[in-house]
């Protein structure tokens, strides 16, 4: 590497951003990560298992967090966002807003603040399926391992109570949003993805029927640190889930919603079918699909999961999900394309395999980046802004890592060019 002071800014501290940062830093570059959440890890921190090995994402995250901790070339800001970027490749001025955590570096995560806190707020990491104290650790393995005081209680007596309970003088209720200015040579744009808004697919009942979940919510339901501690129960009445219908392409490959295919949802549903099948004996899983897209060696995973006799794969188009009054479950109806008959299946829970929208589908930063109609970044010309991960196309974790590693070299090139 040339100039040791040359910095790379990574926007987004999800798996792509972390990877770009760590790979660049281990090559010799100085890196700053800016992350919106109070923790690093992004969507991956919300997953229960990865396909195809069904390993816990925490493992890979911990390894990467260790790489960050051991590497003085990486610094990061959480609860932070980029306000503006100006300049040219090799020389960008970036303004970053760091929002208050109301907890400083003295925090040891001892938890005394949460013990006295009574107000609860929706639990962001569990997609609001449960709530947490307004003084909270984002999740058990959160990095940084520091509490957050939710702005909800700022200015109340309760916040003072939390501050008084802290033995380490770690709560600072006077914190204000801060604007920082940094100079960097290159920028990796890894702002990730959002699940498609399932409530827009009216006929699938999400938002109206409590037992219709999205695939990302189902990950949390299965997670040991999720809203039910990993118990497979119906949100409506807490009854054990005995059957699950997975509706593929929920809003995907559909001109009225997302015209493209998100590439990962088939594998995700195959994976999720193992959650229910392994935890609830004699349970049944139904996957309603158009095509099963298990690319490359992921085919092996499809082949393996298919062996399960209690899993049915049905080429079909689901037209309606309604409440089944008798069982308290849900009636899934549609066309069974292969059998030329009708699907009419009562299940306890429906999981909508929703697609991925790029982080730029709603807000497009004022940067030299080109987009396709869906908001995916298709390129950034010769600028020093390098897109990485799901902001470019829907990707699974391994592909995101591959892409982010490539982005690290592109960023280093820009840094060297100066």
């Amino acid at each position, binding site marked *: 590497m*040339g100039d040791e002071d040359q910095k790379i800014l990574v926007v987004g501290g999800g798996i792509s951003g972390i990877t770009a940062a760590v*790979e660049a830093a*281990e*090559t*010799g570059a100085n890196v700053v990560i800016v992350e919106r959440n109070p923790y690093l890890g992004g969507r991956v921190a919300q997953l229960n298992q*990865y396909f*195809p*090995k069904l390993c816990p994402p925490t*493992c*890979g995250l*911990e*390894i*990467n967090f260790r790489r960050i*901790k*051991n*590497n*003085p070339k990486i610094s990061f800001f959480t609860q932070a966002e980029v306000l503006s970027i100006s300049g040219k490749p090799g020389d960008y001025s970036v303004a970053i807003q760091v929002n208050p955590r109301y907890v400083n570096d*003295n925090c*040891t*995560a*001892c938890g005394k603040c949460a013990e006295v806190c009574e107000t609860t707020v929706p639990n962001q990491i569990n997609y609001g399926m449960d709530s947490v104290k307004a003084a909270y650790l984002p999740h058990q393995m959160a990095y940084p*391992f520091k509490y957050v005081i939710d702005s909800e209680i700022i200015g109340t007596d309760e916040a003072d109570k939390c501050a008084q309970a802290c*033995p*380490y003088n770690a709560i600072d209720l006077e914190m204000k949003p801060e604007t920082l200015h940094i100079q960097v040579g290159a920028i990796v744009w890894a702002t990730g993805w959002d699940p498609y808004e399932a409530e827009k697919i009216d006929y699938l009942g999400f938002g109206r029927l409590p037992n219709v979940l999205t695939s990302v919510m189902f990950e949390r339901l299965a997670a040991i640190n999720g809203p039910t501690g990993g118990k497979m129960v119906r949100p409506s009445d807490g009854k054990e889930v005995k059957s699950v219908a997975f509706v593929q392409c929920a809003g995907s490959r559909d001109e009225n919603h997302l*015209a*493209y*295919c*998100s*590439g990962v949802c088939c594998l995700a549903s195959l994976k999720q079918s193992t959650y229910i099948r392994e935890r609830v004996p004699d349970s049944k899983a139904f996957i309603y699909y158009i*095509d*099963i*897209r*298990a*690319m*490359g*060696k992921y*085919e*092996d995973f499809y*082949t393996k999961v298919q062996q399960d006799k209690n899993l049915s794969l049905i*080429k079909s188009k689901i037209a309606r999900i309604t409440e089944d009054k008798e069982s308290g479950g849900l009636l899934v109806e549609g066309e069974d*394309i*292969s*059998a030329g008959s009708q699907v009419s299946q009562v299940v306890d829970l429906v999981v909508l395999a929703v697609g991925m929208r790029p982080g730029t589908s709603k807000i497009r930063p004022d940067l030299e980046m080109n987009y*396709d*109609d*869906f908001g*995916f970044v*298709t390129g950034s010309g010769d600028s020093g802004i390098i897109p990485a991960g799901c902001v470019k*196309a829907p990707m699974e*974790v*391994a*592909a995101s*890592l*591959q*892409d982010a590693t*490539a982005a690290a*070299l*592109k960023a280093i*090139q820009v840094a*060297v060019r100066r």
Partner: protein
Amino acid sequence: MDQNIGVYLCSGCGIGEAIDFDTLSGVAGESGVAKIYTHACLCGAEGSKVIMDDITSGAVNCVVLGACSGRVKSEVFEFDPMQTIMERVNLREHVAWCQPAGHEDTQAMAEDYLRMGIIRVQKSTLPTPYLEALDKTLLVVGGGSAGMQAALDAAKAGYSVKLVEKEPELGGHMAKWHKNTPTTPPYHEIEDIDLSTIIEQIEGNQNIEIFKSAEIEKVSGAPGMFDVTLKNGGGVHRVGSIVLAAGWKPYDATKLENLGFQKFPDVVTNVQVEEMAKAGSLTCPSDGSAPSVVAFVQCAGSRDPDHLPYCSAVCCRVSLKQAMYFKEQNEETKVIVFYKDMRTPEQAEEFYKQVQKKGVIFVKTDTSKLSISEGSEHKIAIDATDELLGEPIQMEVDMLVLATGMQPAVLDDPILNLEYRQGPALPALKYGFPDSHFVCFPYETRRTGIYTAGCVRQPMTCTRSKSDGTGAALKAIQCMELSSQGKAVHPRAGDLSYPNLFIQRCTQCKRCTEECPFGMYNEDVKGTPLPHPTRCRRCAICMGSCPERIISFNNYSVDMIGSMIKSISVPD
């Protein structure tokens, strides 16, 4: 170095309530340490300053921290690993937070952890990094999409590159193709292939030395010091790391007799269609006529336990593209695609829809069960079951295209010809692909400093191959940078230790040379291990494999672990 051990105990976060600190300090005192210090918040400014001052003044050069988990507060307890040995004893998460406070077993547990921590430090020495692997030239093997991109991107980052291509020209498979699938919005039209730009950039780049019509005779050495010998007197070249982008080869269609290959002249592969299109016309090999009815068979030998069980990921998109070739040649050509699942992920879905609009017909069926026979007037007869209609269909076509899959180029040729005790090839995980076993670390191979890119690693599109080449180049550069500083690469990046062998006591049993997953050891003729420290990933499997216990690290050894276990106090 003479050790001056400081034991720093933290009673904060409930540790002080769970454990009796007077007794705990006494345990440290038994070990003859230089200093014992207790604080109610060691990670706070006051506590951490005490440690820092002791190190700066030289009073302490080994730190045993009895506090929280090593996962946390690492930014506070960060000392120069070349100067200070540090061990963190986890009294918080592993004792105070999970055991009943004040119980005698809780106390005993804390004391044992502390004894083990102190012993561990006593049995450690400061590392002496291996600083001999200094070359920072990258070798790229293969001048196709992935290899060209790897070479160019490494050169653009300022590194010297040697690019070896076995063909007389750069370009790989792409150079032989007619057109590409859509890569730019709105993803509707097939695209011209332009390789001239990148080839010019490579040939004009002073950082890149190109060897065409060249193959590798052998590779010896280790990261930072590989010696690469080219065949036919191509010389010996010193490089620091290697990107293997040797590409793929089509699945052998002669094994697809059931689909009529070689039985009927007009049954061709997708590779042949590409060559025909590039040559200018798509004609039936039997009589040179332009086909008016063409069928594609997807998964020809793929997703099939008797052939390739995996999916080659690109064939669906390739057949859509080739269907367009036929439509471009003559709009009236009838094209039918027999498929198991149409796999057009991401934005390729747009292209699929476009091809459907152009009138191409899609029939879902188990393509491995197609019946192919001779039809009328030299036509090919196909009998299939249309799974969507649930009924049999018969048709006659002029040409049948088999969408065959990809196999790695290293399937039966190691290409790199590594002079490693464990063999000349990169170990493959499955189906011959030297791909990573890890979701989280896609570039890792079992030969340190050698990274695979493109279709030699796994089937992928050429767009993905290019970015894969860039990523592999980054990993290769990173390896050279870390090796030159005597540091380990992933997953113990930055680790300065490596195995020390007390070779006088070696019995040449060869267990270490066989068991190292990374092939770190070569052997001399007698079977004595020849370590190559920069190949080492610090997994310590060799340490465990050695029956003579002659392999150890500065900070990890059989003696250390044995002593730690012995230090545990067992009540009478």
